[in-house]
């Protein structure tokens, strides 16, 4: 027992050391640009890293990447900013885990003339960062809402809607997508900053999914038990949609229920092609990160500051409706285009 165990422990230590060594090749003399993501596991952020890396190579800057341990991990992001300050970085891109709590650290970075760009998620207040490059999540929700409305009107069906949200914390991305969808569908949303204050009889219920398959399945199972007439399902993201589909399938309701989602990840686009997801709004994390790195490189070169999209308080990196069942009056691309442009 003892020897194999010792060997194993030694193996672990060696692995850890080599891992650390490969992660620490620093100091190329180029301008340093930071990328701080929420986590390093989510394919969305993996794609961001790819985009940032390719832009960094093109611009001749050195990219340093950091990530929180899990969604909501503010501490790791604060440390990342401290590290970037000590490297003398020109600026960084950040997808904040805690939009409010990160602001004091951003203020410190501004004191040493760094350019700070929020990616994907704005900080709070938004103008604490120099710019925000993001998907318009409200618009992404609105597109699938409009698509679903057109489809249900064409089929002459009355909708019974299940809302599969992220979690109970009313975080901004969750609220914007949920409210955007309802708005696009033509439902009075009450307070646009609050999920669940609507009292439209077409809404069968809300549940939370944590944005993952298991949560999506359990939430859909429970909502179907609550109201078996559900025929339209909004999902916060495509993994939740995949889970919801399993629950509908098990209940024999997958054929006459429409699922809409948001993300544009490759597995999600595949599910659009298969007819599992009726329509999804694609976002462009690769482009988001590339544009962000370009902006910091430009700032390092001659002090140019990034601009916002006219009429919005952030730079909109675009969203595209993907469906193989296009509806009149709602612009969309098909799943073939989707597969060429998807992420993850």
């Amino acid at each position: 027992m003892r020897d194999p165990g010792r060997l194993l422990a030694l193996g672990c230590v060696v692995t850890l050391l080599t891992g650390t060594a490969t992660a620490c090749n620093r100091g190329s003399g180029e301008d340093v640009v930071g990328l701080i993501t929420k986590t390093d596991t989510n394919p969305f952020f993996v794609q961001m890293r790819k985009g940032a890396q390719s832009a960094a190579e093109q611009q001749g800057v050195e990219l340093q990447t950091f990530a929180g341990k899990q969604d909501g991990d503010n501490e790791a992001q604060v440390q990342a900013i401290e590290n970037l300050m000590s490297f003398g970085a020109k600026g960084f891109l950040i997808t904040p885990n805690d939009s409010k709590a990160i602001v004091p650290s951003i203020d410190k970075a501004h004191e040493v003339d760094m350019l700070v760009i929020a990616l994907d998620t704005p900080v709070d207040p938004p103008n604490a960062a120099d710019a925000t490059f993001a998907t318009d999540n409200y618009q992404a929700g609105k597109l699938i809402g409009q698509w679903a409305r057109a489809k249900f009107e064409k089929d002459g069906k009355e909708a019974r809607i299940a809302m599969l949200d992220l979690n109970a914390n009313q975080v901004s991305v969750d609220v914007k997508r949920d409210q955007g969808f309802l708005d696009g569908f033509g439902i009075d949303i009450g307070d646009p900053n609050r999920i669940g204050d609507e009292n439209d009889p077409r809404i069968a219920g809300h549940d939370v999914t944590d944005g993952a398959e298991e949560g999506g399945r359990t939430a859909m199972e429970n909502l179907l038990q609550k109201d078996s007439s559900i025929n339209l399902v909004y999902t916060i993201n495509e993994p939740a949609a995949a889970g919801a589909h399993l629950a509908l399938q098990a209940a024999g309701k997958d054929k006459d229920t429409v699922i809409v989602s948001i993300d544009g990840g490759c597995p999600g686009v595949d599910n659009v092609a298969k007819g599992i997801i009726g329509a999804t709004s694609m976002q462009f994390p690769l482009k988001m990160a590339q544009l962000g790195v370009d902006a910091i490189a430009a700032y390092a070169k001659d002090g140019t500051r990034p601009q916002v999209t006219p009429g919005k308080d952030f730079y909109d990196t675009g969203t595209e409706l993907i469906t193989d069942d296009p509806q009149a009056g709602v612009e969309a691309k098909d799943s073939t285009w989707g597969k060429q442009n998807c992420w993850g």
Partner: protein
Amino acid sequence: MSSTTADFDVRKDDSLGLRIQHLLHSNPVLGPLAVLVVAIIAFSIVNGRFLTATNLSLVLQQVTVIATLALGQTLIILTAGIDLSAGAIAVFSSILMATFCVDAGMPGIVALLLGFACGTAMGAINGFLVTRMKLPPFIVTLGTLTIFFSLNSVVSNSETVRGTDMPGLMTWTGNSIPIGDFRLTYGSIIMLLLFGFFFYALGNTAWGKHVYATGDDSEAARLAGIQTNRVLFSVYTVAGLLYAIGGWILIGRLASASPNVGVEYNLDSITAVVLGGTSLFGGRGSVIGTLIGALIVGVFRNGLQLGGVEVVWQGFAIGLLVLVAVSLDQWIRKVRT
């Protein structure tokens, strides 16, 4: 672990209180069972759909993975340890199984057994660090939780593996036998059989007695000739295997192997164990209690949703239940013998 509270105040209802206390002390499953039964009655009054076979079979499906993990967690908590890496081992094992058959092209049965072996090995690593290195279980499993989740991301590339790309054996646990409207999945059957097996093993074998003795007072157990290190090592290792089986059941439930699920499984499994009346101080509790504990969580989640309770309050209710369960445990421990 003696309590420092003052002696019982002798009150009029003392005899009844004491009797209940004694009853619960000798039958730790009664408390959780009462909670479950009351919850089921309450929810069926609130919503007529709650008590249908279809709905109850969904609740069972929803708790199957957590119950399997909580079974391993129970063994560890009985020895006064704790395992924070339960979810990480389950999810990582499921990713490894999927990788073995999809990327390495192994037959389903080989990939499955290898996955079980990997889960067992991860459990053995925990056991080794706890027994040989004499590190506290909380710290050990906190470390391995992080390591296994990191490796999980590396191996999977953070990408979900589709069930349709795997041999049928991988997703077989998600298939079900209809019993009227009740759909019993093979995953649930496996889980129930495992509970039956460990219920027997803990109550009727020397190993089971040693697990309880080690948890109750490890020094006394050692002096009585029990090789407590060997018992601890076996418990962590067996738990690792159970988590891997949980990972297999998870693939069936999701019809895919997803690296991004299970972040809270470690805490969920501990919740089930605590609600089931197993003491975090070791030496007292039962696997049947844990099964009931897992069902309590599932029943509350489903029942509150059917009752139209907002999601925020669902979490609140479960948290409150945990505190009640732990308080009850403390109260039972103060029993006068």
